[in-house]
């Protein structure tokens, strides 16, 4: 899958980016660098004012899961019915939709909470429901807009681990917007550093899979080295 994009809007300018199938790509940058705008354009929620997106496989265009910064659940529906929503909109029959949703809730470790309403769930659990809803259609592309920014650090680490595991098992493509250097290094193989005013791509860094395989990656010297490098790239981008 490849897409190329360029626009003359103030939010994002002259962005050219190719995303390969199976990538875990982080868009890293300060607020106002247009990373969310870019994500919304990939999702088709906003149209680029110049330039275009090209899809190597045009069917992938409609095959997207999206996770917002807030869990964005329907408060009047149970966890299960929140997760079946995309399937029901796609015309999947109720029994099959529920079965798939149950399976997906179990994957995000929420088995037993199918009938809980969002207000009964903690922030981390709500976000898990949101992730289950995004993945229940088995999308080829998962777009995440600072999904864990509002969570406490312990919950964030846990969800980072779980997301990574899901990605390693299923190998969907992820574009993950974040303003955390540490989160981007921990999760992503490709880190695209963006600079603000106007939003543009400033640098790209890679964290090879073999580095991530290191024991206790989050506390390893390799992790620290990558964080330092990405941090520098980010400071350079903001100074430029």
């Amino acid at each position, binding site marked *: 899958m490849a897409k190329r994009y360029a626009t003359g809007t103030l939010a994002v300018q002259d962005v050219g980016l190719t995303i390969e199938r199976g990538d875990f790509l982080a868009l890293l940058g300060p607020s106002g660098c247009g990373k969310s705008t870019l994500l919304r354009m990939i999702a088709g929620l906003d149209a680029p004012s110049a330039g275009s997106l090209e899809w190597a496989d045009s069917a992938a265009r409609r095959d997207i899961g999206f996770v917002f910064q807030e869990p964005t659940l329907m408060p009047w529906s149970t966890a299960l019915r929140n997760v079946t929503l995309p399937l029901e909109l796609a015309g999947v029959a109720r029994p099959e939709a529920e079965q798939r949703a149950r399976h997906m809730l179990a994957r995000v470790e929420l088995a037993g*909470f199918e009938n809980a309403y969002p*207000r009964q769930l903690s922030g981390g659990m709500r976000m898990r429901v949101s992730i289950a809803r995004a993945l229940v259609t088995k999308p080829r592309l998962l777009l995440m807009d600072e999904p864990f920014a509002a969570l406490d650090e312990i919950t964030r680490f846990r969800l980072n681990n779980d997301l990574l595991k899901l990605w390693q098992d299923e190998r969907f493509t992820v574009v993950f917007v974040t303003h955390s250097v540490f989160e981007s290094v921990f999760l992503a193989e490709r880190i695209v550093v963006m600079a603000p005013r106007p939003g543009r791509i400033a640098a790209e860094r890679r964290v090879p899979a073999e580095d991530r395989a290191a024991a206790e990656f989050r506390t390893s010297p390799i992790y620290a080295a990558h964080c330092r490098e990405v941090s520098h790239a980010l400071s350079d981008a903001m100074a430029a």
Partner: protein
Amino acid sequence: MSDNELLPEYQEPGFLGLSYTMWLRILAPSLIGLLTLGAWEWAVRYYEVPRYILPGPILVAETLVRNWGSLSVSLGITLQITFMALAVAASLGLALSVLFAQSRIIELSLFPYAVILQVTPIVAIAPLIIIWVDNIQVALLICAWIVAFFPILSNTTVGLNSTDRNLVDLLRLYGASPWQVLWRLRLPTAMPYFLAGLRISGGLSLIGAIVAEFVAGSGGRASGLAYRILEAGYQLQIPLMFAALVLVSGTGIVIFLALSLLSHLLLRRWHESAGAGDRR
């Protein structure tokens, strides 16, 4: 690694299945009510106020029981108008607000007229409506409806417009039709607002029905509670007047409680306003 547990619902300590707060909410107003009635009865007897000026509460109660046969018929007639007006107000208010939510132009063109209808005193236009509309029942219904429908219309319109933008985006992402967005998103979001409007409109439709009956009163065919109040006033049967008044107020309270209960039952599982820790 399990932080997975349901957040505990707030449970207040209580007595006989009701929380202490709930008992306070029942007992304190009851006590005030009893004290007031007692003082009233005492004052009437002590100062020997004639019954055609101010009857005591015991006499009013006796009159109510003695005239229950005819009063209950009038109550039935008033209730019929009230509930029909409320039903029409609810369905038409809901339908109009959905229409408003679908088209900004329709909302901007029609909403001012809804406001005009709302701010025009019903007593002033009720005679016109009663002259124009031959069927007195229909005329009363229209009057009660005019008073009752605005809170539902304006509340539901606000509710339909307060949909979570991200959820709208999400549904668009999955290719939902405008109809699906309305049905799955906007209407459930508007539900608490609609129910709050309904609670206000319940009381208003009773007031509308009574006011219209007052205006139509001399027509004589519609012998609702308002007509009984008028009639009792002409004949200086003040205890009967009070008895009818008690019925009107009681009906209003029952309507409000019933609609509050309906709202609670529909929202308790998901909406903050109906939570276990509700203190209003």
